[in-house]
């Protein structure tokens, strides 16, 4: 079965593709997890990657980052190949990463987590940290406390702030709402709305459809390691049949 998915449409404005995956195959412990993923992330937009548990969403992000090797295909950032390069290379090229389960450094303080992420020339420096504290006042309060002592929601905010410490071309964000209370999810939705309005380029993995619909411009649906659908966000929310088939709502 081979479905042709329309990739980022050359729409009215001359939208630029920042990140592009073509025919990506990834194996984990011998299993063929990603079976030819192609997708485009457009500059200044939030692109949402949807799909059931185990569909391969996190694997797609980790492969893009370089944490998992792609056996085949191509991953380009502003036209430069990332495939076969280590994760630090992708990060230095401007890929920010907020992993599933946050992965903040629990043995470091909140501020140390932020400082660690700041790298030389690309770094936003003290102003970047100040900006993060303005965006997430909880972090300012807890700046010299252990990141491990913070709530799940605060850790998520730290993980997002950490990814924003350098000037990114694109941010990969994996299920930021996972396991969080509705009130925190609302807070995060506001944050992602403002990031979108500021023109950040984001590839967002999300299972919370309401959240996705609120912040996303475009979407892709991933199923069993393949992209099975893609389009504008409002097309998805108006198609109950599509939702039922691939996402189970």
């Amino acid at each position, binding site marked *: 079965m081979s479905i042709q998915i329309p990739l980022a449409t050359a729409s009215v404005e001359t939208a630029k593709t920042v990140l592009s995956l073509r025919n990506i195959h990834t194996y984990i412990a011998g299993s063929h997890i990603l079976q030819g993923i192609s997708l485009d992330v457009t500059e200044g937009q939030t692109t949402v990657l949807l799909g059931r548990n185990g569909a391969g969403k996190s694997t797609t992000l980790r492969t893009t*980052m370089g*944490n998992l090797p792609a056996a085949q295909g191509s991953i380009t950032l502003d036209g430069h190949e990332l495939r076969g390069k*280590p*994760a*630090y290379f*992708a*990060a*230095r090229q401007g890929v920010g*990463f907020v*992993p599933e389960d946050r*992965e903040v*450094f*629990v*043995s*470091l*303080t909140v501020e*140390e987590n932020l*400082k*660690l*992420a700041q*790298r030389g020339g*690309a770094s936003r420096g003290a102003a970047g940290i100040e900006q993060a504290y303005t965006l997430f006042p909880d972090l300012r309060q807890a700046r*010299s*406390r*252990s990141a*491990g002592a913070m709530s799940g929601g605060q850790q998520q905010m730290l993980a997002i702030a*950490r990814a924003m410490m*350098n000037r990114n071309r694109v941010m990969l964000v994996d299920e930021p709402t996972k396991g969080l209370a509705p009130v925190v999810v609302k807070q995060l939705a506001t944050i992602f709305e403002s990031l979108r309005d500021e023109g950040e380029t984001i590839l967002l993995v999300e299972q919370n459809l309401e959240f996705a619909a609120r912040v996303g411009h475009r979407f892709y649906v991933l199923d069993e390691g393949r992209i099975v659908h893609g389009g504008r966000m409002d097309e998805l929310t108006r198609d109950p049949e599509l939702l039922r088939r691939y996402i189970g709502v």
Partner: protein
Amino acid sequence: MSTFLTLTVSGISLAALFFMVSAGLSLIFGLMGILNFAHGAFFLWGAYIWFEVFNRTGNFPLALLAALAAGAVLGAVTERVFIRPIYRRPLSQILVTLGLGLVLTQLVIAIWGVQPQYFASIPGLSKTWRVGDFYVPSYKLFVIAIGIVVLAAVWTLLRYTRIGLIVRAGVENPAMVESLGINVRTVFLGVFALGAGLAALGGAVFAPYVNSTTTDMGQTVLLSAIIVVVLGGLGSYLGSAVGALVIGLAQIYVPYYTFQLETSSLWPHGWPTNIDSSAASLISLVLLVAILLIRPQGLMGLKLEPGGL
């Protein structure tokens, strides 16, 4: 009482030596997940490089620095050539580091021979002070001082520098550190070189402690250092300091109080004789088993506090 004090000074100086070896062992394990069985050979090389330089120049500080530098270079080359290709392959790591340790030991034997090497006394450090029955060899105080300097220097590095921040984060989650744009492999190389350098410095400091160099000293110290690291909590830097203190003191107190050996058998060298050292190894193992039963994470393992080292 004065006997107890004499023993205590011996125990602490032995702890300082163990710490120099186990600090690197522990950092390397914490960051890279590698139990480096070649670490004893770095110690051994440190002793022999020290001997060679000291014997030729008579310059004690220069000989110590030479050992430290040689150990760091040996460690860097080892990481780059032998360890890097086998990250995340624990079985290969055990075989490769064990094999490398044997080869490096054989090299020492090929160059310097199996017989012990003796050398002139250390200028300015050969005096022993005596108050009643309380003996304090100045060399032991020197060893303790070196141990404290190393402890403080590495702690400052870990706690207050960017490299230290990266190492602490890397101990927790190297893949995430890499995703932040940091080349973790470079940090691995640096930590391996530092650890090997400290082990070599330990060997250099140890040789005058026992008044000779012997080709089996690396193996003996490696066993104690591994116990120290497990006892202190794998990967915990301050834990290895505490572990070293426990093992150092135990290896001096226990043989004395168990077998009622003369203090003179521990003095001036303070290194247990054969009977003592098997007793010392035994007590280390007993302590290790006891701690592992009560606190499997070690004395200070898995601390999740800010600045947890």
